């Protein structure tokens, strides 16, 4: 090896340097390998980040006055409205059923319409839904009275974007019959001048 190096005077130093470097690197790696048993992954910063994200997500989840689980049967439409959401009784109209508060009102929607047997022909009031809304309003009135708040008969309608107008009109008439004085539509906000969704 020495003779070879002597024969190549120009490349000699370079080659020797490279060899020495490689050896140094190898021994360093070996040393690191030995010590590696003691070196643990420092996850403190990751833990900090996760704690912050967790707090943020939990807060945003808990602070929503209206929770809507969007799925295939309930997709919300976009609107340019700037009115913020408030906590109130929610009527959810999906592709399959009407839900009053948390309880399904046993009103099924088939093929985009409500079965005629569930609707009063003369007034368009959905009988079962009216009962459910009355019960919910009574419950809310009791809660308001207990908390010393002013009673408000306000309802938010959260409807699937394909809900037919006929159902919407029937729901509105039913709410009016049940004594609701104010109705609001729950939508997703899309500021004017922007293009949202489809």
């Amino acid at each position, binding site marked *: 090896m020495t003779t070879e190096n002597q024969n190549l005077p120009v490349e000699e130093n370079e080659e020797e340097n490279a060899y020495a470097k490689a050896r140094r690197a190898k021994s360093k790696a070996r040393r690191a390998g030995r010590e590696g048993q003691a070196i643990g992954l420092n996850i403190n910063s990751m833990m900090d980040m996760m704690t912050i994200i*967790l707090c943020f997500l939990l807060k945003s989840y808990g602070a929503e006055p209206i929770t809507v689980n969007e799925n295939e049967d309930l997709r919300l439409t976009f609107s340019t409205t700037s009115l913020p959401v408030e906590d109130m009784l929610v009527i959810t109209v999906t592709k399959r059923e009407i839900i009053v508060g948390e309880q399904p009102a046993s009103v099924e929607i088939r093929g985009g319409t409500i079965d005629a047997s569930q609707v009063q022909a003369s007034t368009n009031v959905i009988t079962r839904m009216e009962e459910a809304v009355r019960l919910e309003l009574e419950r809310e009135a009791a809660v308001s009275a207990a908390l010393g708040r002013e009673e408000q008969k306000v309802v*938010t309608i959260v409807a699937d974007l*394909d809900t*037919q*107008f*006929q159902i919407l009109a029937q729901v509105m008439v039913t709410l009016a019959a049940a004594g609701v004085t104010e109705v*609001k539509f*729950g939508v997703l906000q899309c500021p004017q001048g922007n*293009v949202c969704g489809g």
Partner: protein
Amino acid sequence: MAKKYKEAVPADLDLAPIMNLCMILIPLLMLSAVFVDKGLIEVNVPSAGGQATAQQDEPSEEILPPQLVLMISSNGFYLRNQNGNATTEAMFAQYAAPLPGCPAAAAGGADQPPTVCLTDAAADAPMVERLNWAGLYNRLVEIRTNTQWFEKFNEEGAAQIIITADASVPFSVIVKAMDTSRYFVRSSATVVEPPTVGGDMAQYQLGGGSGASNADISSAVYITGEEERPVGLFPFAAIGAPQSRN
């Protein structure tokens, strides 16, 4: 002695279970979180006896602002006046008539033509794309800025529009109609002052009154007045019962 030695060794906190919990909770919460703000639209509940009955009883020929009714059908938009006053009705006739470029009433035809007809979008396109929103907006601006009614709309602060539709019209179209009729808008490139009586009303129409497309209305921004609040066009919407359009 041995016991003492054991206690002296600092115990390492085992973070693995907390990490596991975080790893599960974070994706779960992120999936359920919706990063779009929700909002509300205020709607007036239809009264059982129908609207504007008090005004219908008045025998006077006073120029009352029209009680605007917007009917949405698969043929387009129909604008009607529910205020039974003869003077108002005569004044309103020009606004109920079809827009320039839309088919006029067929002689002896039973069906009245829509005030705002459909766009050129394909027949199988969604209804939201087929309806001419810019045309509707421009016609609403014409009604709202009519000099004889302008102050009355302002005074009463009750520029209400009753929205009704054919049974099969989807909810998204109703919401879009409310959005279109709520506030005055302008194209984002221009600066327009809030409307005043006797002003040049054509400047509030998109595309100078004609040739406006639906893209113009979706890219438009509100005209703001006092305290940077948008200026109302017909800010109060009510849902009416489905009714005949003739």
